[in-house]
């Protein structure tokens, strides 16, 4: 029997027992695929996180977890990060040692983080507007490339902030924001974010609002004017605005001092090494602030991840060995079941070498196919992981 004959009989046998073949191929594909994929994902993850961290010299936040601050300031996760007052930005700026970029990454629209910041952020991250224009007025937003792609958002569309608690009427304000620009793809968490100015974020939080002018409101909506007090107090029936338009923009206002309003982080970009050292010296000892170097924090995080990865790899190797053992058992049982078939083929005139080839065909086919699938999967993973992990690790 020539190779074509072995191939013909082998393929026909595998086709006939396709359920068993598919299961074996799937199991072995996972055995070959999983351990290297874990290594690839950890390596790419480290590269992605480290690249963003390395490009962010210093981060300032309120006292708390340094890692939480890094994740909020760089990847826009951890929205419950402790807040610090906006005046810190002005304080850092006034030292003349660094550029201070405020970030308020607390609210979201669906699964996308709404990031309140200044225009300096776009220049710092080298984010370019692919369509439309940059932020000019309160109530406008610019969406990342991934947000636009996933939801089909274009310039002129609107994005609504998600309420934090459905029944908390006095809580976070669902604000409709007009999309004025779409960012070009950056393969970073910026792709999945919605950028707006700080004032818009504060309005979402309910720290600023717009409503019908008191003088125009009907008598029922006024509660009282007490004595000589010129203040007009309005009850809850007065109409508040959920969208900032040219017509109602002037009615939006903040109660209290703007400098005391919250942000979650400040990206600090020192002018030079000396400025960085001086600034660190000035801020390091402050009890009301937390100063971190993101690259160091990420390095520390990955030192832990690598230790865990070792355990995971050992576990996967154990599972892999068990799967291989079960696979070998399946092949041996298969050979045992087919012994009569092979004896008859030999009787008909098949050479021992052809029968041996037929015996190993199943194993070679299953191993070869599963290796091919695993290698293809690993190649695809290696090629695509940097892009989607860059966006996803936000």
């Amino acid at each position, binding site marked *: *029997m020539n190779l074509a004959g072995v191939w013909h009989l082998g393929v026909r046998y595998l086709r006939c027992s396709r359920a068993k073949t598919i299961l074996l191929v799937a199991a072995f594909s996972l055995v070959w695929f999983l351990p290297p994929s874990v290594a690839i994902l950890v390596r790419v993850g480290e590269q992605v996180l480290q690249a963003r961290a390395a490009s962010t010299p210093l981060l300032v936040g309120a006292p708390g977890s340094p890692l939480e601050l890094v994740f909020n300031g760089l990847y826009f996760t951890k929205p419950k990060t402790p807040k610090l007052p906006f005046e810190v930005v002005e304080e850092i700026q006034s030292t003349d040692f660094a550029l201070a970029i405020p970030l308020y990454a607390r609210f979201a629209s669906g699964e996308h983080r709404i990031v309140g910041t200044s225009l300096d952020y776009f220049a710092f991250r080298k984010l370019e507007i692919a369509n439309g224009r940059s932020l000019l007025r309160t109530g406008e937003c610019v969406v990342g490339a991934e947000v636009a792609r996933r939801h089909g958002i274009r310039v002129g569309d609107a994005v609504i902030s998600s309420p934090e608690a459905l029944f908390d009427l006095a809580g976070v304000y669902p604000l409709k924001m007009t999309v004025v620009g779409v960012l070009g793809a950056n393969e970073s968490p910026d792709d999945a974010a919605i950028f707006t100015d700080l004032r818009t974020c504060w309005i979402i939080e309910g720290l600023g609002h717009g409503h019908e002018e008191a003088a125009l409101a009907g008598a029922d909506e006024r509660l009282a004017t007490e004595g000589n007090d010129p203040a007009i107090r309005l009850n809850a029936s007065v109409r508040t605005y959920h969208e900032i338009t040219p017509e109602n923009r002037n009615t939006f206002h903040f109660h209290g001092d703007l400098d005391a309003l919250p942000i979650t982080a400040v990206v600090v970009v020192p002018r030079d090494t000396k400025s960085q050292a001086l600034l660190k010296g000035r801020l390091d000892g402050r009890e009301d602030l937390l100063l971190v170097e993101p690259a160091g924090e990420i390095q520390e995080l990955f030192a832990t991840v690598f230790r865990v990865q070792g355990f995971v790899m050992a576990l996967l190797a154990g599972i892999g060995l068990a799967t291989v053992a079960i696979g070998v058992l399946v092949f041996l049982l298969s050979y045992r079941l087919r012994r009569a078939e092979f004896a*008859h083929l030999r009787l*008909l005139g098949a050479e021992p070498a052809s029968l041996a080839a037929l015996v190993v065909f199943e194993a070679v086919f299953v191993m070869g196919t599963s290796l091919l699938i695993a290698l293809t999967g690993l190649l695809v993973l290696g090629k695509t992981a940097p892009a989607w992990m860059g966006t996803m690790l936000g």
Partner: protein
Amino acid sequence: MIDARDILFAYPAAAFSLEISALQVGRGETVALVGPSGCGKTTLLQLLAGVEVPQSGALTVAGAEWSGMTRAARQAHRLGRIGLVPQNFELLDYLTVRENILLPCRLGSALGAARDREERCLSLSERAGIERHLSKYPGQLSQGERQRAALCRGLIGQPELILADEPTGNLDPENQDRIVALLLDEAKMIDATVVMVTHEPSLLPRFDRALDLRDLCKKEVGV
């Protein structure tokens, strides 16, 4: 076609041994081999097929002296000259009936051109009455149809010698008759010699000769 003289065969780990002083079967002759279970009928067929080789004596089958040949040479000779029909059909479940019939052609390249094989397969299956089942799998056939398919497989290479090991053992009388008639008719068409093991006395008159293996082991039997 078959010439055996003073052959002795014993399985290494068994008490059983087969001794035949002389056996000659001529070209085109049809022989029924009878005898009680365990007397060595299947062993004799395996010796004739070249699967086993006698420890002593001379055995020539279809022009080849088995003891002077390697296993590979015996297999190649068997594939080209001898057709085998087993008792339990031994059809491969994962091949269609057509592929099963053509299996010996897959195993050896010396069995004619592909087109001739296909034509032979079709005409054989038509005469066996299983042409409608060629694309079915053995599991979809009755016992009789499966045995006819196994018989077609034994005949596909137009062998000079057909060795059949109780091919009617699992069949009802009607199917027994049909299988033996088909076997003998096809053998006559290609002038093949037939040696068939059977336990069914009613089939013996259809053969040129009936040999009892117990007699064969004691005295010379010849033509």
